[in-house]
Every structure is written in structure tokens, then in C-alpha cells.
């Protein structure tokens, strides 16, 4: 069995998210070094604030300002920070109940004294990020704050939540790294392409040949294992004319994108048709692959010059 292929796969998205009135006030507040909470119907103050009371589901929106100091309610020592986490040296994850709040906020605690310097109940304060944009990361982290002060006794002051240039949305970039492996069947297909061959797999039950093979017959739900060379020539079963130029794609429009039934296959695959004016492409046109240098999928398919295939020979593959 040929070696199963593997390749790095990075999935990366900048998610653009809009904020409601409460989250907008909270995140804009962080930019201005102000921490806001929201008061629920029964008088609790939620920090970070939300728009609906998680207990009663009542809409809430009465903002109050709480302190930038607080108490650790639980913690966990993270000796090996991972990509994207707030600090790049060992730190403690903490839930912090800020003075004036009834719920706790999750963040990082910079504790140069190591895990032995951290305990539940310890006093901490916000360390603001030098550059702030209106995001939870405007709090760079928390830091120990052992000074004794009255904090917590005062009723948090009401805040109208209004700031100049409020933040109404955030861009939350997400990136996940994978090592992708396509599995046995698709690895064999990709290996064959490097030799300018196209292989499919035959279903032991219905005898259909699938290309590209995915290891299973979607009709019978059984493994396909008998490898079959198909093509390289095939027949255009149906097509469309593309008039919109795709970004980063160096193909002049209009061009034709077609379903091509390779000889010996029972499923048509997709491909671009070249070497013929776009308005001369037709159902039944006989085509062959044009291979790129260095292997991989055919760059496109071009006419072979054979007579067109009879409709009866490919009507089941439309």
C-alpha cells in the first residue's frame, strides 16, 4: 500500500462580530480603562456584563462601574503557555471577582513568584495593555495587588456607558493548525496523479467506479477497495460558462467549467475546458487532461479531436 499522505493545513478566519449595547459599552470601557458591569433585576452585578440575565433571561442594561481590583475565586497554573494566550511566560489562569461585582471574569494572572505565590482569595488588579482597541485583551493580564484598601464596600456607581467613538464590533482572528491526512483511498488517488494517472475505486456491491475515490460507495454504504485506472480521456456530460473572474485566479473569462465522465468511471468529475473557444464546448465533447509540470490535478481538459460521444453512452452520468 502506498504511503498515506499528510500535509499541514492551516484554517484561519478573521471573524467580524458586532456588539450589542452592553458588550459595546464594556469593551469601549476597557479601551478607556473603565470596567463596567451590568445590574440584574435582583441587584446582582455581572462582570463581564451580558445583555440577558443568565438566571431569569430578563433583558438587562443598567451599567455600573466596578473597580479594577478584585479577588481570585479559583486559579490554575499554566506552566506552558500556548499560542494566542495572554502571556508568553508561565502564568496562572484566574477567575477574578472584581470589587463591586458578583460574578467572576476569566483572565491571566502574571505571577512572577510562581505557583506558590498564587492562592484563591488573593488580591489582584488589572494591568492594562499599552495599546487598547476595545477588546478583552485590553486587559493585558492581572497582577498581584496586596495593598490593603477599603475596596468592595462601596456601592458601584452608575455609568451611562457612553464614550466617544464607541467600539461597535470586534475582529476576532481564529487560527487552527492541523496535519491533514486524506486517508487510504484519497492518498492512492493523489499518488496516481503524480504519475499522470487517474484512479477510481469500484464498489463490490453495485460495481460502480467512483472517482475521485473516497473509500466508500455512497449508494451502498460499503468500502470500495478495488482500484481501477480510469481515463485519461473522457466525455463532457454538462458544463457552464463562467463570466465572473475569481479573485487570485489567473484565468481569463469567459471560460467553461464542465462535468467530465472519464472513460471507465461511473461518476463525472469537475474540470475546466481549454483549447477550444468557450462557445464551442458541447455535451458529448471528447476531452483529455493537460497535466501541469510537477504533478497534481490536470490543469484543464482539451478536445481530443475524436467524434462526439453518443448521448446514450453518458446519459446515466449527467
Amino acid at each position, binding site marked *: 500500500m502506498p504511503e498515506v499522505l499528510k500535509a499541514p*493545513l492551516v484554517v484561519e478566519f478573521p471573524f467580524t462580530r458586532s456588539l450589542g449595547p452592553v458588550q459595546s459599552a464594556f469593551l469601549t470601557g476597557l479601551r478607556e480603562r473603565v470596567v463596567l458591569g451590568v445590574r440584574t433585576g435582583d441587584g446582582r452585578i455581572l462582570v463581564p456584563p451580558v445583555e440577558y440575565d443568565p438566571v431569569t433571561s430578563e433583558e438587562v442594561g443598567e451599567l455600573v462601574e466596578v473597580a479594577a481590583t478584585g479577588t481570585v475565586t479559583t486559579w490554575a497554573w499554566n506552566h506552558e503557555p*500556548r499560542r494566542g494566550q495572554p502571556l508568553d511566560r508561565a502564568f496562572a489562569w484566574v477567575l477574578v471577582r472584581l470589587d463591586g461585582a458578583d460574578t467572576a*471574569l*476569566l483572565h491571566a494572572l502574571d505571577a512572577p513568584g510562581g505557583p506558590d505565590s498564587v492562592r484563591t482569595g488573593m488580591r489582584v488588579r488589572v494591568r492594562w495593555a499599552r495599546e487598547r482597541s476595545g477588546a478583552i485583551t485590553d486587559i493585558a493580564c492581572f497582577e498581584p495587588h496586596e495593598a490593603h484598601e477599603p475596596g468592595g464596600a462601596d456601592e458601584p456607581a452608575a455609568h451611562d456607558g457612553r464614550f466617544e467613538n464607541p467600539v461597535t464590533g470586534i475582529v476576532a482572528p481564529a487560527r487552527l493548525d492541523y496535519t491533514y491526512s486524506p486517508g487510504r483511498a484519497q492518498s492512492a488517488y493523489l499518488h496516481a496523479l503524480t504519475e499522470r494517472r487517474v484512479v477510481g475505486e469500484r464498489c463490490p456491491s453495485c460495481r460502480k467506479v467512483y472517482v475521485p475515490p473516497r473509500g466508500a460507495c455512497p449508494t451502498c454504504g460499503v468500502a470500495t477497495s478495488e482500484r481501477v485506472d480510469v481515463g485519461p480521456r473522457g466525455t463532457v456530460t454538462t458544463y457552464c460558462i463562467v463570466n465572473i473572474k475569481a479573485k487570485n485566479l489567473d484565468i481569463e473569462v469567459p471560460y467553461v467549467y464542465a462535468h467530465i465522465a472519464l472513460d471507465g468511471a461511473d461518476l463525472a468529475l469537475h474540470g475546466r475546458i481549454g483549447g477550444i473557444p468557450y462557445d464551442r464546448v458541447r455535451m458529448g465533447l471528447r476531452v483529455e487532461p493537460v497535466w501541469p509540470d510537477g504533478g497534481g490535478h490536470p490543469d484543464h481538459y482539451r478536445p481530443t479531436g475524436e467524434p462526439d460521444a453518443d448521448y446514450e453512452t453518458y446519459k446515466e452520468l449527467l
Partner: protein
Amino acid sequence: MPAPRPLRDIAVVAFAQTDHRRTSDELSEVEMLMPVLHEVLAQTGLKTGEVGFTCSGSTDYLAGRAFSFTMALDGVGAWPPISESHVEMDGAWALYEAWTKLLTGDADTALVYAYGKSSPGSVRDVLTRQLDPYYLAPLWPDSVALAALQAQALIDAGHTDEPALAAVASRSRASAAGNPHAQLRGPVPRGGYAVRPLRTGDCPPVGDGAAAVILAAGERARELCERPAWIRGIDHRIEAHGLGVRDLTDSPSTRLAAERAGVFERPVDTAELHAPFSSQEVVLRKALRLDDGVTVNPSGGALAANPVMAAGLVRIGEAADRIRRGESDRALAHATSGPCLQQNLVAVLEGDPR
């Protein structure tokens, strides 16, 4: 208030799972899943076309591919067309959907399957993407870190300590010695801290796997299985997504789901708990009021094999198998989803009186 009795008698009549492994590079998702589907169907003699409803659980984030469940459907044989649905959750929730479908009378049998290949990515990081995108996800708190915060809260509250957590892990893996499908079996070192106070031994193995269950209603269940595992009640509940809003030392959603599923009406003899971290078993035992008379996780539980998205369905399948083999008369199965036991499903399974 006693839990309402379901409108129809519905049972788990078959269960199959893969051997759960650290990697399965040589197999695509559908290639990993297919043998399990064939096995569970073979147990009943049913063919795909004879199953009334099909429902699956999985997540695209594990493989990094959109709509990956549609590819997995190739393993079912969806022609002629079948009645099918999918949940982006553990397969236990797919089973819940199938159960409601059977309750309506629209179908008499259902195939439920779930799978997860964690090996292509880093599941600790992948799971951060299920968190609140405004306040949590930008900080990338990984699943082990969040469980560790919960573990420390339990230690501070005096509910457990590190040796007790180690004992949970050790008992689970000793039990798994009898489970040929488990990924970690027998003595497993406590290991160093992953995120303190949790050690590697307190954390689940990362692995790939799949599971499938067949449900059947009424007489159909008796035809397909000698001793069906009747679902006497099933319920699932969720808590606030804000971790700092919740009491992490308790699981009121599990307790409420258990109450609504009828767990507390009579004692159970077996409990299959979906507790990926040793500390979470402490929380669940308390929420479910399980005493030492209950056999907890005889399969080894999620500490022995944690195929993400299938581990909860495996709990239901393992509990049902105990009943089908006559080793249990009334079993509890639990599944969880989200950070620190945020969402919980509880089912009560019973065999016919002997």
C-alpha cells in the same frame, strides 16, 4: 414531581464502537466509521434502507473541514433517500433527537452514530473555538486549563484533593483493562502537571474513534434484541456560558436532567459518566447522588478513551450493553458538552424484570 413516562417504549438494541486510538492517519473519517456502522446493523440484521431515521453527531472543527458529516454519510448508503439529520454535538444529543423522532411515531427504528478524529489538530486549542467569542475565545483558554480551574475550585471547597483525583483516574484505567476498545488501560502514571492542579493522568487521552447505536420502539425492539435496554427517561440541560457566573463545584444542570429523566425514583446499579477529567467525576457523583453501591464507569469512562463527539454516545452504548448482557437492570448514562460540564444529558436505561 415524578418524571413523565415516555409516550412509547424505546430501547437501545445494538451498540458498536471502534478501538479508540491516538491516530488513524490511514483512514478518512468515513473509512473509520464504516466498520462500526456495518457492525451495529449486523447485530440487528437491519439494512440501511430499513432504518426509519438516521442521526449523527460530529464537529467540523476536529478535521478542519466544512460539512465533514456529509462525507461520512457515504458510509450509511443514502440511496434510496433516507430520513437523516445531524447535530454539531456529541452523538448522545443525536440519540436524543432520534429518541424524540421515535416518540412521534414517525419511525420505529433509528440509527445513531458519532465520530471524532482529534489527531489532525490540537484538540485543546480546537475546543477554545466553542467558547464565548467576545470575552473568552480571544484569550485561548484551552480545555485542560478550564478543567483545572474547576479542579482547583473543588479542592478549595474541600470536595477532593490531588490524591483523590489520582485514585479516580487509576480506578478508571484499571476498569478499562477489561475493555478491548479503550485507548488507555491498566496502570497509567500520574504524570506531571498539565495545568496545575491537573496532572496528565487526570486528563483524557486524545484519540480518534466512532460509535453507533440502534434504537427501536416497542415490539420492534423485542424482535431485534433479546434484552433491550429501555430508555425510561432522558433529558438534557444547560447552564450559563459565563464560567464566572456558575458554581464550578456543582452541576445543577446534571441534577435537573437526572431528575427529569427519573434517575432519583429508584436506585441505579451502574453509571456511565462522561467525565473527561478526574475532577469532573467528583462533581457528577455529587450531582447524581451516587453512592459506593453504584458501579461507576466499568468501561473505564472517558479517562480511558475520549473520542470527542462520540464519547457521550459511547456512555449510553456501554450502559445499554451492560443491560443487554444482564450485568445491570437499571443504569444511568451521562454525556457532557462544553467547558466545565456546561451542558449535560442524562438517560435512564432498564432491562425487563427478571
